[in-house]
C-alpha cells in the first residue's frame, strides 16, 4: 500500500536534535523575553507618568490658559500643581508676602526681604536690579510693577510694593513673583561736582564709536537724540557686530578709572549739548549709577535727553561706562552747577526667589488687607 510505504519513507525524515534543542532553548529564553515585554509597558507607563508629573505642573505654571482650565475644573488640583508659597529662602535671604490688598481690578502687594538665620545682608535699601518677574495665573491682562518701599530698621526688612491693575476685577487668580538678583548694601550720596576738574577743552575733545549695551531716552527726545548720536560720523554698523554703533567722547582715562569706584571721566559742552561721561567700574560685582542735575548760570535745569551705556576691557579688566546728554543753553560754564546723586550697591546676590499667592477679592467682612 502506498500509504504505508509513504509513511515508512517519511519515518526517517526527522528534524535534527540540534535544531530542536535550539528551538527549545529559544522557547526558554522566550519566557524571559515575555517578561521583558511585560515589563516594557510598565517602564513605558512609568516614563509617561514621570513626564506627566513634570510637564503638567510646568504647563500649569507657565501657560496661563492651561492653568485657567485646571482652575475651572478643580481649584484643588490647581493648588497642587501651582502651590501657594508665600515665603521663599535662598542664599540666606527670605522673600515673604507681607500683605495683599485687592480692590476691584486693582491690587497692592507688599513683599519683604529679610536675612535668614545666620546671615546679615539686608541692612538698608535693596535694589531688585530689574530682575523681578510678575506672572499672573488665571487672570486676564494684568499690568503692574514693583518698586522699593522702605527699609525698616526695627524689623530689619526691606519692603517692596507691587501695584497691579487688571482688565477685569480680580477673583481668585494667582500671582507668582520671581526675583533673580538683589543688590544689597545700597547707598546714596548727593554731591556737587566741581566742573572745572572734568571739563574737556576743544582740543581734548574727540569722539569714537562704541557698541552699546543699553540706552535710555527721554520720551520727547527719542528721535532727536538718536539723530544726534548718529550724526557725528556714525550711522554705520560695526562690521563684526549687528548692534548699532554710537559716538561717545574719546577720553584717555586708563589711569583714573577703578573697578570698584564711580569716576567722572569727562564733561564737554558745545552748541547746546552737554555730555557727561562716567566709568562705573565693574557692574558685575555691584551696581553703581548716578542721577544728574545740571543748572545753567540762570539756574535753569537742562533737559536730560538720554544716555548710553557700554563696557570695555582695559588691561584684562572689565569696566562699564555711561554717557549722559543734556540739552540747553549755557553761557558761562564756570557759573553752572552740576549735582549728582550717586547710588552704589556693593553686593550683588543672585538667586531665584519665588512666591505664589492668590489675589483674592476682599469680601468686606474683614479688614481690607490680608496682613501676614
Amino acid at each position, binding site marked *: 500500500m*502506498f500509504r504505508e510505504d*509513504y509513511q515508512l*519513507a517519511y*519515518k526517517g525524515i*526527522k528534524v535534527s536534535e540540534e535544531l530542536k534543542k535550539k528551538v527549545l532553548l529559544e522557547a526558554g529564553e522566550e519566557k524571559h523575553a515575555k517578561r521583558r515585554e511585560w515589563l516594557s509597558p510598565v517602564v513605558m507607563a512609568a516614563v509617561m507618568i514621570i513626564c506627566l508629573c513634570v510637564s503638567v505642573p510646568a504647563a500649569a505654571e507657565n501657560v496661563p490658559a492651561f492653568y485657567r482650565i485646571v482652575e475651572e475644573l478643580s481649584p484643588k488640583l490647581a493648588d497642587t500643581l501651582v502651590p501657594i508659597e508665600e515665603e521663599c529662602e535662598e542664599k540666606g535671604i527670605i522673600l515673604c508676602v507681607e500683605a495683599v490688598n485687592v480692590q476691584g481690578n486693582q491690587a497692592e502687594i507688599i513683599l519683604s526681604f529679610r536675612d535668614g538665620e545666620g546671615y546679615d545682608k539686608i541692612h538698608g535699601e535693596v535694589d531688585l536690579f530689574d530682575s523681578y518677574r510678575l506672572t499672573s495665573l488665571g487672570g486676564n491682562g494684568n499690568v503692574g510693577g514693583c518698586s522699593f518701599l522702605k527699609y525698616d530698621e526695627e524689623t530689619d526688612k526691606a519692603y517692596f510694593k507691587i501695584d497691579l491693575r487688571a482688565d477685569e476685577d480680580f477673583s481668585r487668580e494667582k500671582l507668582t513673583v520671581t526675583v533673580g538678583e538683589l543688590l544689597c548694601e545700597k547707598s546714596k550720596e548727593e554731591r556737587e561736582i566741581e566742573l572745572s576738574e572734568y571739563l574737556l577743552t576743544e582740543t581734548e575733545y574727540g569722539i569714537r564709536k562704541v557698541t552699546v549695551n543699553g540706552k535710555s531716552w527721554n520720551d520727547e527726545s527719542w528721535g532727536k537724540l538718536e539723530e544726534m548720536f548718529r550724526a557725528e560720523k556714525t550711522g554705520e554698523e560695526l562690521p563684526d557686530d549687528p548692534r548699532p554703533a554710537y559716538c561717545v567722547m574719546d577720553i584717555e582715562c586708563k589711569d583714573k578709572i577703578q573697578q570698584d569706584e564711580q569716576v567722572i571721566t569727562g564733561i564737554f559742552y558745545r552748541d547746546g549739548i552737554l555730555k557727561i561721561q562716567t566709568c562705573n567700574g565693574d557692574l558685575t560685582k555691584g551696581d553703581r549709577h548716578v542721577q544728574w542735575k545740571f543748572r545753567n548760570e540762570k539756574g535753569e535745569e537742562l533737559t536730560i535727553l538720554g544716555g548710553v551705556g557700554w563696557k570695555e576691557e582695559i588691561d584684562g579688566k572689565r569696566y562699564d561706562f555711561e554717557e549722559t546728554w543734556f540739552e540747553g543753553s549755557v553761557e558761562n560754564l564756570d557759573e553752572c552747577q552740576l549735582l549728582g546723586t550717586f547710588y552704589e550697591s556693593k553686593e550683588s546676590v543672585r538667586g531665584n526667589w519665588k512666591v505664589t499667592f492668590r489675589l483674592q477679592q476682599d469680601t468686606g467682612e474683614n479688614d481690607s488687607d490680608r496682613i501676614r
Partner: protein
Amino acid sequence: MQKKSLRTDDSCREDIERYSDMVYKLAFSLLKNEYDAEDVYQDVFYQYLHKNPVFQGEEHKKAWFLRVTINRCRNFFHTAWMLKVMGIQKSGEVEETMPSPSAEEEALKKEPDKLIELVKTLPQKYRVVIHLFYYEDLSIEEISSILKKKPSTVRTQLTRARALLKEVLKEDFYVS
C-alpha cells in the same frame, strides 16, 4: 475581549516536541531539501513562540502548525533566492513538470528514499495534498480547511496527484 494564551513554558516545550517532526516533514516534502526545511521549521516555531496564538483544541493547534508551515513554504518559494534557483531548474525543465522517463526509471525503486524522490518530482500543489492525505491522515475536509480551498478542489488535486503518482510509480507502488 481579546483572548489570552494560558500556555506555560512546559506546554510550549511539549508542543515543540510533539509537532517538530510534523512541521519538518511537511516542510521537507514541499521544499525538497533539508536545509530549506530547517529554515522553515525554525520560522514556524519562531512564529509560534512570538505570536502566542490561542488554540481551541489539539486539532486546532495541529491545523495551525500545518497551515503556517505551508504558508512559510509558499513564502519561501517567493524569495528572490528561490525564484532564481527555480528559474535555473525551469530551464532544465525539472521543477513543476512531470519527470522525464529517464528520471522516472532512476527513481523507480522500492526503497523509502527513492519513493520520496519520486514524490518530489510532483508539482508542489500535489505534494501538499499527498503529504497531508497519506502521511498526516487528514480527511479531504480537513485538508480543504487547512489549504482554504473547496473540498472539491482538494479532491480533484488529490485525484490528479494519484494519477501522476501511478504514472510515476507504475506497478511498484499501489496508490489508493
